[in-house]
């Protein structure tokens, strides 16, 4: 039985009581306890820094050349916090409620409430570190709106919020490195968990520069390795983002939960051709001011500026008047797909909709003219409006122009949904521990807080909540009982065995010496998963996909070609290791999607929709976390964790 260990008592006091009663480790004992942290994004860097500050001996690992590169850096829009600085009715409860509702009632109340509670501390902490959030003229912090909410609670730093937050966490981490509390291992990839007496006690890592395998001991291991969106090949994730660390843990017995809950972000730059290696997000914050539309006429080939106002269909405003362009991501993505599938798409591929800033430019221009008290002509108003838009979203507009060669100040941007985030991940309890004692998962790597759909500006919040404010307490509750365990020598047979298995697998991969590149397998996997386990899924397609992925796996292991040597830098070998894991995960995603015979959040089963085409949940049958245990090749066992809603009453989500 999965025990989520949610503390008893009223929702608002659970975390407070937990913190007051959990076990502590005294400072002298902390010095002899070692913690391994995999990944240095927001969750990993904040955890490594905070645990270093507490006095634990920390080893942090990342595959990039520096911890500052982790993909949290690319988050654009912002970070939510229930500060209510705008006096617009926000509160911890509202942030909690919006997150639960946004997640389509598939997240744990206890975890989400804790997240909302600590959200305010995160902003305080980041400001103290010198994170340069946007400010008003009075010197106080500025907020913006985001999808799925009706208050302004999002803190931001232009379109580079993730960068600024990560740099803050990275600097805190480097400070601990300088103080000797954290040892940093860049260009290292974790390739297995070492288990001793049923507990996670270390890792095997590949030094990506020399190719050497290394053994590292830890009293506990934290996986902060991010999400698995790259299973789709094309996603907004970084090229190196991978599921390998989480998957190795899964193979060692850690349950993988809700893998089919993936987020397709509505506003990305459309695919331009087969050469495409990744997709680029246009921040959701653009939906604050931009209006989304398609022509009212099918297959309209006119240029956007030639289509008169009355012949445009602002379909989000039409379908969802209360939230308009700011509906949650899953809803906005499906609505775009619906219009394109129905033949209203734009651009050469017809797989795109317009995101139009013309109205916002005029509105801001007029406000500026009013502020300055001038009677400006149309051109001046437009110019002043463009200047305002540039200040707010300039870097995003520049990026769009570089990628597409078009000027978004003059013509509407073309956008289409793309894979962005994965709500599923390793199963963890309230303490963020997986079902393997001593093995934790933080941030996007775990499944816990976003249910079936994540609201915008909540990923940064969760990563930092887990790293700065949750794990420092919960890990003590475990390590307090480990103080008598002396550091285990890496000569222990469990380390030798784990290392030799990793070595064998690498040799096996290198010895295939087939004909097809790793990249070609990854592309094919991505296409299967996108077509059949993407924005819309059905039983037949999923069954087909499972077969295709199984075949692909067989072909991969018999025909992949990896150049180079083992004992040297070999990016193709690293990629092969990752793609092999993605293939296995792809199969499990389809199995999970097939099992969940309902639609909820990002998981849309075509068989289960309302008459209006909205997601139709079946709470009587699927109000649970689907956690999968690997039993063997192509074989998984389902464990259900029932979700109990004590405070919120699940209802059909409505944004109309």
């Amino acid at each position, binding site marked *: 039985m999965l025990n989520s260990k949610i503390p008893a008592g009223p929702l608002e006091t659970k975390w407070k009581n937990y913190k007051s009663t959990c076990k502590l480790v005294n400072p002298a004992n902390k010095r002899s306890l070692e913690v391994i942290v995999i990944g240095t994004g927001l969750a990993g860097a904040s955890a490594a820094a*905070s645990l270093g500050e507490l006095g634990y001996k920390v080893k942090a690992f990342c595959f990039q050349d520096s911890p500052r590169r982790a993909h949290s850096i690319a988050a654009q829009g912002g970070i939510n916090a229930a500060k209510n600085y705008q006096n617009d009715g926000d509160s911890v409860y509202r942030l909690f409620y919006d997150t639960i509702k946004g997640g389509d009632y598939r997240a744990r109340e206890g975890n989400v409430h804790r997240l909302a509670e600590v959200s305010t*501390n995160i902003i*305080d902490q980041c400001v103290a570190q010198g994170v340069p959030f946007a400010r008003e003229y009075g010197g106080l*912090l500025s907020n913006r709106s985001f999808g799925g909410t009706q208050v302004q609670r999002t803190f931001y730093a232009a379109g580079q919020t993730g*960068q600024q937050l990560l740099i803050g966490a990275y600097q805190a981490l480097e400070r601990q490195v300088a103080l000797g509390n954290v040892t940093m291992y860049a260009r290292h990839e974790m390739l297995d968990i070492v288990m001793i007496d049923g507990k996670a006690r270390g890792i095997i890592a590949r030094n990506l*520069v020399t190719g050497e395998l290394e053994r590292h001991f830890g009293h506990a291991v934290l996986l902060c390795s991010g999400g698995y969106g790259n299973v789709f090949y094309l996603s907004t994730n970084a090229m190196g983002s991978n599921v390998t660390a989480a998957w190795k843990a899964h193979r060692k017995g850690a349950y993988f939960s809700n893998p089919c809950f993936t987020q397709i972000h509505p506003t990305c730059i459309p695919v331009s051709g087969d050469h495409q*290696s990744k997709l680029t997000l246009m921040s959701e914050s653009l939906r604050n001011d931009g209006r989304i539309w398609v022509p009212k006429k099918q297959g309209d080939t006119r240029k956007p500026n030639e289509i008169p106002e009355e012949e445009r269909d602002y379909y989000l405003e039409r379908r969802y008047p209360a939230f308009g362009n700011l509906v949650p991501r899953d809803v906005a993505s499906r609505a775009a797909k619906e219009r394109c599938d129905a033949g209203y798409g734009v651009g050469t591929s017809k797989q795109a909709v317009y995101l139009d800033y013309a109205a916002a430019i005029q509105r801001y221009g007029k406000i500026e003219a009013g502020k300055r008290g001038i009677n400006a002509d149309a051109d001046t108003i437009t110019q002043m409006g463009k200047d305002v838009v540039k200040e707010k979203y300039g870097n995003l507009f520049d990026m769009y122009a570089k990628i597409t060669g078009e000027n978004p100040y003059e013509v509407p941007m073309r956008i289409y949904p793309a894979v962005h985030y994965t709500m599923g991940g390793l199963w963890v309890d309230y303490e963020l521990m997986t079902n393997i004692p001593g093995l934790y998962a933080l941030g996007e790597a775990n499944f816990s807080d976003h249910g079936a759909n994540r609201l915008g500006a909540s990923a940064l919040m969760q990563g930092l909540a887990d790293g700065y404010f949750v794990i420092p307490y919960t890990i003590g509750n475990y390590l307090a009982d480990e103080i008598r365990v002396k550091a285990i020598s890496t000569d222990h047979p469990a380390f030798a065995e784990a290392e030799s298995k990793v070595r064998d697998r690498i040799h096996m991969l290198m010895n295939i010496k087939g004909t097809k590149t790793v*990249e070609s397998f990854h592309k094919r996997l991505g296409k299967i998963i996108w077509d059949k386990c993407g924005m819309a899924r059905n039983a037949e397609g999923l069954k087909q996909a499972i077969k295709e992925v199984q075949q692909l796996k067989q072909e991969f292991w018999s025909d992949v070609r990896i150049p180079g040597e083992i004992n040297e830098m070999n990016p193709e070998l690293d990629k092969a290791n990752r793609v092999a894991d993605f293939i296995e995960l792809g199969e499990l995603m389809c199995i999970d999607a097939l099992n969940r015979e309902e639609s909820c959040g990002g998981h849309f089963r075509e068989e289960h929709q309302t008459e209006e085409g909205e997601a139709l949940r079946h709470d009587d049958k699927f109000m649970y976390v689907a956690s999968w245990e690997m039993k063997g090749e192509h074989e998984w066992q389902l464990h259900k964790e029932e979700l109990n809603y004590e405070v919120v009453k699940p209802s059909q989500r409505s944004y109309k």
Partner: protein
Amino acid sequence: MEHKNINVKLKVWRQKNSKEKGSFETYNANNISQEMSFLEMFDVLNEQLIVEGKDPVAFDHDCREGICGMCSMYINGRPHGPWQANTTCQLHMRAFNDGDTIVVEPWRANAFPVVKDLMVDRSAFDRVIQAGGYISVNTGNAVDANALPVDKAKADAAFAAAACIGCGACVAACKNSSAMLFVSAKAAHLNQLPQGEPEKKTRVINMVAQMDKEGFGACTNTGACEAVCPKEISITNIARLNADYAVASLTATK
């Protein structure tokens, strides 16, 4: 926007590892869509090399949206290639014409040794940050964020400096391989904020000392760094660092 396919000739620096000597190899990249990014063009080349049984070109890259700072090619004598305020991953093949020869090298600097081919080791930057590129505040000590108003102009200036992505183009562009733009950007970010004030002096002294220790060269204000910076970090930050450094040196208490 009209796009076409082009053929280009690539002269690429190949170097097996940090110990062996490197040299240029020439490759043809044919039928390249101008909609491709520069790195996607390299993906195509690498796929071709693997199929031919050759070793693909190693290069650093990750986010491919111009923010992680990992990509680092020196293209036709300029870090990140011909476009202004741009990273290699955001450079698109529209920048080139059919028949062009493109020379691609790694960053060249003593402080950035080549790891393989176009990859270099930039851990010197991390060590410069370790020397003082932070505000010493442990988790859990912070007061309410709005308890400390910050002048918007200063906050904006701090943000502009904090936009540095740590790619190292400034070092690669500088004839002396100076890291002054990088160091000054971090100092400008933290020193202009009230939170960074208490450590201002030790920060600049320690970061500059570490920078020298890593083997970066001296700054002679030629401005090549600013000209190639993908995030348009201003060279005025260097003037500010020099001023802060002078004050810190003159008033140092130890």
